[in-house]
């Protein structure tokens, strides 16, 4: 397989794998009543997964990223608009990388 074809096949396979995860949810819980502990677990899944995605960057890249993440979280909790939060985070990481 040529490099271009392999790349194209990978992109299509990624798309199919992703759609499978999206469409699967329609049928996953059919007939299951989501309440109590199961609901608490389901409700916690999105923040837990989002946190897991960024944890290595935030915790083990270096002090600049960790401090910038804390500053970003502070801005997020002030309920500033999302684009402002992102801008503050990026500005913080630039400044901190220059000094740390």
């Amino acid at each position, binding site marked *: 397989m040529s490099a271009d074809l392999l*790349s194209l096949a990978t992109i299509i396979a990624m798309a199919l794998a992703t759609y499978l995860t999206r*469409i*699967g949810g329609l049928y*996953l819980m059919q007939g299951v009543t989501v309440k109590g*502990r199961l609901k608490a677990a389901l409700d916690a899944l999105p923040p837990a997964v989002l946190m897991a995605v960024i944890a290595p960057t935030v915790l083990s890249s270096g002090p600049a990223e960790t401090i910038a993440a804390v500053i970003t979280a502070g801005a*997020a909790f002030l309920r500033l608009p999302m684009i402002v939060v992102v801008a503050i985070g990026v500005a913080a990481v630039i400044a901190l990388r220059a000094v740390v």
Partner: protein
Amino acid sequence: MPGPSRATDFARGVFDILPVLAAAVPIGLLWGTLAAAKGFSPFAAWLTSATVFAGAAQFIAVDMWRDPVPLLLIVVTTFIVNVRHLLMGASLQRHLGEFSTPGRLLAMFLMTDESWAFAERKVLGEALRPAYYFGVAVSMWLVWTSASLAGAIAGRSLGDPAAYGFDFAFSAMFIAILAGFWKGPRTGAVLAASAVSAALAKLALAGAWYIVIGGLAGVIVAAVLHSEQEAAEADRGDAP
């Protein structure tokens, strides 16, 4: 009584998602430049964003991209990173009563962390109308695919995104989204369990298993803490 028109609902969806769209532009540009640096043509970058349409998975896939492309590893990793969609979809499908069958299939294709979060927020107050959902989701798709394409075209002329700190924009956006899920100290416990487990798993294991491990750790903590809350309610005698 007739509700708001479809056009009004659609426009409300677009308006609600505007701040996320503004944040998605630099992140889409960034992904496009990273993809171009790994040899993606502008068309391949656009195709990826248009069909995969999942930021976290796309960043991780481009990071793993090399010659020859490790197809199986990338596809398995993509699936693992996106397994959260199964549970998001399981939750969202409870609110798709006003959607036709093709509408549901399209709604799920367009489901992102952001459109899902906006839909779940909407159903706290009223029914989820298709036009509103598609206002949110279609504008996300248009912005993400356009920004990715622009990034891939501009690509090499923009240079290394890390030099400008744009590599951190992705983490910053997820932190901003995370804040919307905050419901008190129990959320803190969930996030701490997830962060520590994921960071340790990342050091110990190859691939993207750290995302699943962190996610499961957070879910387990949530389930455990929930039972304590139930016990407390039973003690007070106000259990159902």
